């Protein structure tokens, strides 16, 4: 399996450019990167030509000595922002990412039928772009009961895959953190998804929340084995379906303190020094390597 890492949101806080961020990931021992088309760099890349942007990113990654393996487009609702996803597909092709994880579309109060139909039409359009860009699109477990998604379980994802019937171009990103939030059994999910799984996003959390008050308490993005996700079942499941794809570390740790203290205008501890963050990334890589070695997947 190939081990990759996303540059978590904290790295941008240090004022580093993309080449510098990817250089740090390479120094942390990662040979492969997960590129994020996230809201943090939305204005920059959305206003650019996706072909030119993709080539620039490819050059940045090359300068840093790290290879693109996959990319994520996240933080958008394609229902109102489909063009963003389309541009990301073109860009992913140019930057050399073979796989692109894309969000599913939802509308407030959509029924299951509306959700499915809307997403099938959207995915068909995106698959056409992906064909030209030679990119495999990946969908994943999405949302929680707070959001009007109907892809919480493998059966729902499989149903969508079957209706589209494009197994070579549309596959699954197994987002272990999302499964943790949905509190579903990872082994069963992996067995149901089987060969459709093309990449695995690794992170940890403490499960879903019973009330809508603190959604930020759910997707914590901790290093694997820091929360309550059952990684033995995850690894056993992947081993049993002979998974041989990408293992992608996707953390949001350590946190960047958002709240300004009324007593402290400067908040010098808002951001951990980059050297310590780097050590935590190296430690997380070691955890992931340990997980792989424990199940004979190195």
């Amino acid at each position: 399996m190939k081990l990759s890492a996303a540059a978590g949101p904290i790295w941008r806080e240090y004022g580093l450019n993309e080449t510098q961020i990817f250089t740090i990931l390479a120094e942390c021992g990662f040979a492969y990167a997960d590129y994020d088309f996230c809201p943090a760099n939305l204005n920059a890349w959305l206003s650019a030509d996706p072909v030119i942007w993709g080539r620039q990113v490819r050059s940045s990654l090359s300068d840093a000595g790290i290879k693109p393996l996959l990319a994520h487009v996240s933080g958008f609702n394609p229902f109102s922002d489909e063009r963003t996803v389309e541009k990301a597909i073109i860009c992913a092709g140019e930057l050399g990412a073979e796989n692109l994880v894309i969000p599913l579309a939802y509308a407030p109060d959509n029924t299951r039928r509306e959700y499915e139909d809307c997403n099938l039409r959207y995915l068909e359009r995106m698959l056409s772009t992906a064909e030209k860009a030679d990119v495999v699109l990946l969908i994943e477990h999405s949302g929680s009961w707070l959001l009007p998604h109907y892809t919480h379980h493998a059966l729902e994802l499989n149903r969508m895959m079957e209706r589209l019937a494009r197994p070579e171009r549309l596959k699954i990103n197994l987002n272990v953190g999302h499964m943790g939030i949905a509190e579903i059994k990872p082994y069963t999910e992996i067995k149901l998804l089987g060969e459709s799984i093309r990449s695995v996003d690794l992170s940890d959390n403490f499960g879903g929340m019973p009330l809508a008050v603190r959604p930020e308490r759910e997707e914590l993005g901790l290093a694997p084995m820091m929360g309550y996700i059952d990684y033995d079942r995850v690894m056993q499941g992947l081993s049993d379906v002979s998974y041989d794809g990408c293992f992608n570390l996707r953390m949001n740790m350590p946190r960047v303190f958002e709240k300004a203290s009324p007593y402290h205008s400067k908040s010098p501890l808002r951001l951990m020094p980059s050297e310590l963050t780097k050590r935590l990334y190296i430690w997380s890589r070691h955890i992931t390597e340990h997980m792989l070695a424990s199940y004979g997947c190195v």
Partner: protein
Amino acid sequence: MKISIARSSVWTLLGDEFEFYRHIRECGFRYVDYDLFSTMSSDDAPYMQDDWEKRACDTREKMEKLGVRALIAHAPSGEPAAPGMTEKLIRHTIRAIEVCAVLGVENIVYHPGGQMGMSRKEYMGFNISYARALVPALEKCGITLLLENVGRWDEAFYCHDADEMLELICAVDHPLYHACLDTGHLSLQDANQYETVMKLGAHLRGLHIQDNFGSLPVASTNRMWRQDLHLPPLMGCVDFDEIMLGLKQTGYAGAFNLEPESPRCGCLLYDDNEKGLPLHHMTLELTLEYYSCIYDIAKHILRTYDALEE
């Protein structure tokens, strides 16, 4: 401030007190929070036997050889107000105070007692009597007893915040009775850390430094284990700038005492018969790599506020 560390996941993993000291020393820690919490919960505990003093002397000697010193201690676990527990826990805590004297530990931290259905007045009455029962041992040994903030809105405790702690401290009114602030427990109240430190002022003699993501609006019986996470500092949403600012302004002179229980040792989702699974817990090597980072995170916090004492 000196950096110290409580029992933590490393001890749980090793299962041996002195191995814990040896390994934690390699991570950079030279000071510890001595654990009498989990080691003195029954009358069969070694420190409850006749040879307790010799055992404590041996422990002190071994710790010195390993290059670690205890600055603070956890008092024996148990619910002081539970039926049949009060006398036993007083007996154990008195012995713990005596052990602290032999070990050279100046402060011992305990949890107040509360039972469902207790009124605030009953709660205060019980805890005043309980603390006063320990006073003779404190005076004899010259040890300070520190009251820890515990509980949530839905539990039978009335020592949630600085005001409630000060109410009890002032009622007990003894020079060897002060406060220990648990930053994680305070976060579960969503109370302001700076204001709490400032209010406790000179009464603040100990810290349990840990992080989490705040309280959940659910009853503690439901998902308490998702709240009191005992993450290392700067991993959750506790505002350590506020804490450090308060500690500097009040001239806090105690230990910067870390109380992490992370990474988890055995996920709650596992059954007992699954403990042998390869990822049931992190390896010792990985855990120590993490604790070495935790030590440096604590150093960073203290250095940022020019408060590090090696």
